[in-house]
């Protein structure tokens, strides 16, 4: 039998990624996630079974960050020893690490409102209406923020595969 607690646990990895995109800090992301989980458990009665649990939780996280936690955000934590991420093929892992840093850096440079839209639409695959409901803004605003975000991201991350010439 499905349980609210088990559904919530299944959501944690995606919720954690969303929290990191919002806060840009591992430590703040955990704060937001834990606060959201506590609130979700306290108010589990208000979630309507059959509606999307992820949208409900993501909205709680976004509101907590916006209304309460953002003012107390912490500075970034010191970098861990690089040796922790080395694999058996040192060179391959190093290249992958550089690429991951570039994607994270490009995303981090976006304004928070654009990061939120990118996280929901591009990374979570939500529709414009679903994203609009979570962020409590009109679909038109979703579209303009997404266009601006993608223009910036395309400039830094968008080296395309070869394009076939027009006939």
């Amino acid at each position, binding site marked *: 039998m499905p349980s609210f607690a088990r559904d919530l646990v299944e959501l944690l990895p995606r919720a*954690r990624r969303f929290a990191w*995109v919002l806060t840009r800090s591992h430590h703040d992301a955990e704060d937001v996630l834990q606060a959201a989980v506590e609130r979700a458990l306290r108010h589990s009665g208000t979630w309507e079974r059959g509606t999307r649990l992820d949208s409900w939780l993501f909205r709680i996280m976004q509101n907590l960050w916006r209304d309460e936690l953002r003012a107390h955000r912490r500075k970034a934590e010191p970098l861990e020893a690089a040796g922790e991420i080395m694999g058996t093929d040192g060179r391959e892992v190093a290249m992958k690490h550089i690429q991951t840093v570039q*994607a*994270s*850096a490009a995303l*981090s440079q976006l304004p928070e409102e654009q990061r939120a839209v990118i996280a929901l639409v*591009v990374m979570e695959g939500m529709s414009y209406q679903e994203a609009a409901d979570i962020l409590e803004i009109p679909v038109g605003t979703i579209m*303009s923020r997404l266009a601006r975000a993608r223009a*910036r991201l395309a*400039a830094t991350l968008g080296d395309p595969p070869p394009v076939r010439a027009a006939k």
Partner: protein
Amino acid sequence: MELNDELLCAYIDGELDAPRRAQVERALEQDAGGRLRLARMRAADERLRKEIPVDSNAAADPLAQFILQGESAAATPRARLAAWRPTFALAAGCAALAFGFLLARVGGGSSAVHEGFASGRLQAALEHAPSGARLGDEAGATSVVLTVNARDGRYCRLYRQRAEAGVTEGVACRESAGWRVVAFDGTVDDAGYHTAGASPLMDHELDELGGATLEPAVEKALLAGEWTAR
């Protein structure tokens, strides 16, 4: 049909109905620039999804234990977990440190804007530097993010400048007298090692100027030809 960024986004995200989708596809057939912008957006999407993945190692997550066992939050210390590191969280730390390092290295408070026109290092970057910030770039304190061909025919560039105080973003347009800084936002991000967020004010300025972002090949040709279009 003008293939603006919003339309391309709606096309990528499957938000267009069938007739509109067909219209866009027909327009794309005639528009190599549009096809390239589409490919770049898709490539950037793919990189984000691939390089900032979800970490499904939930077994080691104390938050999961807390939810399933119903322990009180106060009793569960949220200590740092040495044995478990989401890849993206470590990458975020790396990115933050890399930019923090750059911030610390750049000094000087030389004015880069003289009577509304860019001068010194800013002028040199606007005139000569290709778009695209890369870590470890020799350009140092100034980098150019993108170039647009504005509605009024001017070439305008979005730039970022790092100094001890923080990061400034601005938009400058090329005129006969030089690069006129039409807007800049010197808001300082106080989050320590984080890179400063990009400026929504500059995005608004770019929207006002209109026009499309230049493709790298087009921009490269312009830089090589000293900004003279063919």
